[in-house]
């Protein structure tokens, strides 16, 4: 379960929007900016982004919901992405993922109760040669096995 996220004031959101307004095709940079600043894109940002770009909230929502990486609620302190593409699956990635989920008692996209780790599927990290692979925050990890996974989770505080 996600915890209730505190409301972010419109003024703070507006400041982030204004920073990228001068860009050509600024919608995606603005959404990235919001996510980078607040860890997610708050609901109240959608109409503000729409107003700034003179588009409707539906259009902002359509773009935002297309990309899985834009979050509606903040993730845990660390994000663990486990590759579920074919090469990794054939090298035991699926079993490892199932085991990890079971261990943490989570479903995909879930976050541990202490808020330390969010676990997500990813479809190919381009590391097929060293499958199974995963990614912790911005760092990719190859040749995963149970023990490396345990270490990762421990370091992340899960």
């Amino acid at each position, binding site marked *: 379960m996600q915890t209730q996220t505190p409301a972010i004031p419109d003024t703070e959101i507006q400041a982030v929007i204004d920073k990228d307004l001068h860009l050509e095709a600024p919608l995606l940079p603005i959404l990235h900016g919001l996510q980078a600043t607040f860890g997610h894109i708050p*609901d109240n940002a959608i109409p503000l982004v729409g107003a700034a770009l003179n588009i409707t909230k539906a259009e902002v*929502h359509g773009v935002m919901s*297309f990309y899985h990486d834009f979050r509606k609620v903040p993730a845990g302190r660390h994000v663990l992405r486990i590759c579920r593409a074919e090469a990794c699956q054939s090298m035991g990635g699926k079993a490892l993922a199932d085991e990890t989920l079971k261990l943490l008692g989570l479903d995909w996209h879930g976050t541990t109760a202490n808020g330390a780790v969010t676990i997500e599927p990813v479809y190919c990290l381009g590391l097929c040669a060293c499958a199974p692979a995963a990614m912790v925050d911005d760092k990719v990890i190859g040749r995963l096995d149970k023990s490396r996974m345990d270490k990762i989770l421990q370091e992340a505080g899960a």
Partner: protein
Amino acid sequence: MKDFIIPDDRDMGTPARTGAPVTLTVDGFEITVPAGTSVMRAAAEAGMQIPKLCASDNIEAYGSCRLCVVEIEGRRGTPASCTTPVAEGMAVRTQTPRVRKIRKGVMELYISDHPLDCLTCAANGDCELQDMAGAVGLRDMRYEPGVNHYDPFGIGTLAQGDARARTTGDLGNPAYIPKDDSNPYFTYDPSKCIVCSRCVRACEEVQGTFALTIEGRGFDSRVSAGAALDDFMSSDCVSCGACVQACPTATLQEKSVIELGTPERSVITTCAYCGVGCSFKAELNGDELVRMVPWKHGKANHGHSCVKGRFAYGYASHKDRILNPMIRDSVDEPWQEVSWDEALTFAADRMRGLQAKYGQKSIGVITSSRCTNEETYLVQKMARAVFRNNNTDTCARVCHSPTGYGLGQTFGTSAGTQDFDSIEETDVVVLIGANPTDAHPVFASRMKKRLREGARIIVIDPRRIDLVRSAHVEAAHHLALRPGTNVAVVSAMAHVIVTEGLMDQDYIRERCDWDEFQDYAEFISDARHSPEATEELTGVPAEELRAAARLFATGGNGAIYYGLGVTEHSQGSTTVMGIANLAMLTGNVGRNGVGVNPLRGQNNVQGACDMGSFPHELPGYRHVKNEGVRDIYEEVWGVPIDPEPGLRIPNMLDAAVEGTFKGLYCQGEDILQSDPDTKHVAAGLAAMECVIVHDLFLNETANYAHVFLPGSTFLEKDGTFTNAERRINRVREVMKPVNGYADWEVTQLLANAMGAGWNYTHPSQIMDEIAATTPSFAGVSYDVLEEKGSVQWPCNEDNPDGTPLMHVDGFMRGKGRFIVTEYVATDEKTGPRFPLLLTTGRILSQYNVGAQTRRTANSEWHDQDLLEIHPNDAELRGIKDGQWVKLASRSGETSLRAMVSDRMSPGVVYTTFHHPDTQANVITTEFSDWATNCPEYKVTAVQVSHSNGPTDWQEDYNAQAEQSRRILPAAE
């Protein structure tokens, strides 16, 4: 589109194109189409319907459903026919084993995620998915039930009925989204959605609202109104119905069809709301109206509609409608239901009695801009031929009479110069005192489409209306003037154009009176008209105004559209003339894409004016003093016609208060609510001895009536309406009048009760009389209208097909006439007691006095009039959003709730006049246009203060209204 009744109404798949001819063969048949046409449309032209789901001919091709694949000789693969343009010599095969197999496979996938509910589905028999399953010959579905969007409980049910029978109580399928019932007129059932995006594209391309999107991706893709937490009501949706029309399944479905079933017959007719005059297909079962569908061959709307015409027809069967004639001796008595004979005899005797006692000119009529041309013609004929006076006026008095006067004086015709299609070639739009997205929504959609294509718009309006800035629309300039300073702003624009030498000299020399132009140029060049000199007065920054004037003069085809914000002023006629000057100065009259275009408020206000409703004009805008014209009518009608103009509405009311005007026949108009200075109107009506109200409902005016004649709706009669582009559209009898008689019949009965001896048996005979007596209508007949669909007047020997564009080779009056436009401030001025300026207008969901729309679910969008006030003005008075406030002028006061909004300029407040509880016209004053008496609704000095609720006046009024609406049970 879900067309299934009129056979030649088929969907061609993709929009028409206009390129050079290209010849190809489709399944061996040769066909020639314009370059740029899709293979799908070419095949349709050749008579071959290629299976399709995501394509429709009112939106651009999208190529997502992959059902329309074809084979083309010499090309690899199986291209989608909707996105493949034709090429010379192309040989297309629409049915080969290969494409049949692909189509079947695609269909199988679609059906694997669609409930098998067909027999109990609201779209049964009207579903393109069903049709296509048949067309591709789908006989089996190999996929096992798996992850899907339709099974609420996730227990393997294939249909909703099955699901209900086997319910486990908990929604076990996270992908299932329940129905969205929030819109009062249609439902959104995501379980039936095939994600073809037609609704999203119709919302964007046709309506221009962008309220819908596809959320998610891949299998998670769903149609979403607004953002994640929105439903249809909380989204930006304006309920125009374009998405419902576009939906090939029952995903977006009219609630009326869900309730009543699919319609079995249809009649093409014309909407009776605004001046756009949209054509609709009324679809019925027997005499029960199931839905109104915009008709794609309608030349004003091309298949689009708004929430009013599309959905708000429920008033026609509302319980408030009065179906029996009623009379009473005095207005403090309850109504007595009587037979038609008794009511008509009572009315005729009273009217004749009044004329005997108070003179021939003591009675008059008010014609309706809501009724047909034929009905209006008969009502004015009643005044002229039966009452034998010219006491006839119409509600155009209070809206566009300055247009008639101003354009008549400058160009020579009292009407707009273009058709609506002209907007497609406009480069610069000047919009003055009009809010088309609310008041003329279907035209606004076309304007917005053109703006998205790159045309620019200059908005001259005290409010920041949607066309100043809203999704995908951004005005090049917004001149937020102070109400009442239109003439100063328009003159300042002309000053810039003349003094900076931006005028089109050749055009002026060729088409206008050069001497008058020189007088005008000298007048307008005076420094007192410069933007800098008038800036303080108008509140418009001089630089902004100069830039706007330059853009209009140099930006290509410039078209001026204007509304009641121009006419309803003490200088309304002057502004219209100023607008005509601007158009002539820049050479913007006489071709496509330009012109002067009044946006007419009511469905037939143009027609009511054309039909001689005004006290000084016989039909066709010919003065009653003109003996030649009187001769025409004297011969046809067999009576002498009074050469003296009669009374205008305000004069009738004044005369009534003075005791010289005693009787009124008022058809389809609620002057008590719609006319300014309500208290004065009430006093005038109260002083009359016989007020005959002919209407659908006991309206506010009927509180002062002695005779009530039940009216018929536009669904219940034959006739014609003339829209803002002078287009004469047919109104057809969709069902028989529930009150017994169409309005033209009632007028005839009343006239005959007064001894007229008329014997029209069909409105076409009335139109024949109009054509025989009015040169601009000479070529109009019901046969012509049947054949052509509609014509734009003048339609006569010179223009047998009608006239879409006016003044093409020169102005109707000969030379275009420049008239000097001196700004004279209105007498209505702000001061310490009344420091704010009130201006009034409309909102999308309600129409005019609301007699119709208030009796529909449209009230869910707007259930009361609100006072829009700028945050600064609100804060100064300690007023918060949603609070009751008292709005007072020197005429009267009323109470309503406040809406704090920065759309307003500081110092200006705004409200609508849709609700009789508010009676915004208690506030408005008796000031009016100098030339035409059109009331100055748009400028009233007011004060706003705190209030606890309705004022004493409102409570007294409501008590009186209730008292006056009592009806005694009919005598046995």
